[in-house]
């Protein structure tokens, strides 16, 4: 396929060729992928022209980095630019096309985000404990040195324990107020909630398929009962909005 053509006819032709190749049981897969790749390159060119350059490849783009570039699909490590893939997940849904794939990818993304946030939280916390331990060892070493110089007893168990508590309390307090910690804490809860949401949606789908009540339906029921209860209380109190008893 020559570069610089008008594009639209080329796309149609490539699509037809690709479809034929796909439908032909004897197709050589090695021929199919280069054709797909050519189609993607042509499509990118057309899209770029139609969007006045807004859709042009960004500087530094390489083969396979774009989520629609089939070269990337063949890589073991997945797409070169994960962010583009995640953005694709957030795009509009098209009447069920690839919905399941997108959902599985979305669940994977939330799981990865949660694990990353958990590791980040553990790293920040571990750094705080290590800092406390380092200070404790420094301080203890100085105390033991001083004891040796003055020919007095080494610090005993109780002294060491009090020292550790004093140092650890201060160091961990500092760590727990740090921006790193607060960011990690916020991210951990955010990702936990997001992961839980996609898992719940998946489970609700199965529940719905099997005719079991979903959590959302039970919540609706609880809400309805709660509203009825409030109305009953208001009626009992003669429509008084305040509920401070009789």
């Amino acid at each position, binding site marked *: 396929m020559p570069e610089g053509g008008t594009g639209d006819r080329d796309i149609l032709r490539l699509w037809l060729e690709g479809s034929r190749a796909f439908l032909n049981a004897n197709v050589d897969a090695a021929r199919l992928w280069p054709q797909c790749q050519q189609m993607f390159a042509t499509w990118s060119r057309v899209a770029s022209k139609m969007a006045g350059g807004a859709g042009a490849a960004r500087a530094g783009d390489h083969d396979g980095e774009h989520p629609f570039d089939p070269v990337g699909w063949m890589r073991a490590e997945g797409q070169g630019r994960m962010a583009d893939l995640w953005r694709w997940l957030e795009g509009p849904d098209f009447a069920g096309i690839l919905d399941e794939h997108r959902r599985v990818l979305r669940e994977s993304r939330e799981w990865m985000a949660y694990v990353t946030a958990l590791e980040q939280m553990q790293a920040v916390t571990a750094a705080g404990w290590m800092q406390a331990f380092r200070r404790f060892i420094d301080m203890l070493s100085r105390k033991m040195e001083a*004891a040796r110089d003055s020919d007095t007893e080494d610090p005993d168990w109780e002294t060491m324990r009090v020292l550790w508590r004093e140092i650890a309390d201060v160091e961990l307090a500092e760590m727990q107020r740090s921006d790193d910690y607060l960011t990690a804490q916020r991210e951990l809860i955010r990702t936990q909630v997001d992961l839980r949401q996609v898992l719940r949606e998946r489970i609700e789908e199965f529940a719905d398929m099997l005719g079991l009540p979903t959590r959302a339906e039970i919540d609706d029921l609880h809400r309805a*009962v709660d509203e009825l209860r409030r109305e009953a209380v208001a009626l009992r109190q003669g429509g008084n909005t305040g509920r401070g*008893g009789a």
Partner: protein
Amino acid sequence: MTKNGTTRGGETAARGDLAGITRRMLLLTRKLSSSNLRDIEIATTPKDEIWNDGKVKLCRYRPRNKSALLGPVLIVQGLFGRYTMTDLQPGRSLVEKLVAGGVDLYVIDWGNPTRADQYRDFSDYADRYLGDALDQIRAVSGHDRAVLLGICQGGVFGLCFAALYPERVKGLVLTVTPVDFHADRADPDPTHGFLYVWSRNLPPVLVEDLIREYGNLPGEMTGAVFQGLAPARTFSKYTTDLIDIAEDDDALETFMRMEKWLADRPDHPGAAAKQWLIELFHQNQLVEGRFTVGGRQVDLGAITCPVLNIYGAKDHIIPPLSSRALRQHLGAAPYEELEVPTGHVGVFVSRHAQRLVPDKIVSWLSALE
């Protein structure tokens, strides 16, 4: 070890120390393996249920002496922990001492909320349930007004009720109660106020999403937060501190009772949790007069009854400044403070507090009569 290579007091002392620790560890292992947390009973002071509304129950403690009763007093615990902490064990029980002091004492038990309770908010707890409970207390005791003894969040419930219905409250005893939710910023102690910092660290939209997904604020989650407020102390509590009390049966029993209480952490109803985290911790609406309960704004200046405000000087959960801020927001209500040199829970269970707090409450109640 001295520079001569020997230990002062001889090496026997060092070996004895290590041997002592080892002995206590073995003893502790044996005691813990033979004890069963389920067998330990807390909140054993005799009481009778006099009313309930679903999971919410009102109980009256059996008076020791039917004449000369003080009160009536209603204990109002918050929704993060159970009221049982006020009656941890005989001899170390605020409830037991108040009953012995002649107080006609009641407690409202919020039960264990489930997802069915996720839409309960402050209007339910600080208005309707408290109002209904006081109706029952009036019927039983013959007194039109009662004293509310609020604990932590329960103190906020008490403040809201006393502001909305001043004619129904005879007095307010607040214990470890947050009032100004931004006062931690002025607290110089770096170990104070993490709960405030962390709560504000969650954007309101994240709080909304969290509650939407979980329905309620899970007890396991709030328990983990409380443990994380003082990680070094939590760590030593289950290690060195525990080894130290291995030979002290009384201390070990108290430890186990505290664990029993800590393990019984209910889920916090979702709607009320959103108000708590967003409207109070984030927006500080209570002291700004914008907090709404039962469709009415809570004006702390409208409280007319005497107030006794008890706080822990070493409270790392509710910083003293947050509690003491109440003084400047009350109107003409008589106000008194009691500082207890303990932490949050220590106000109720420490030996020091046991000598201080019940007597003070009884004498304060006597002055109300």
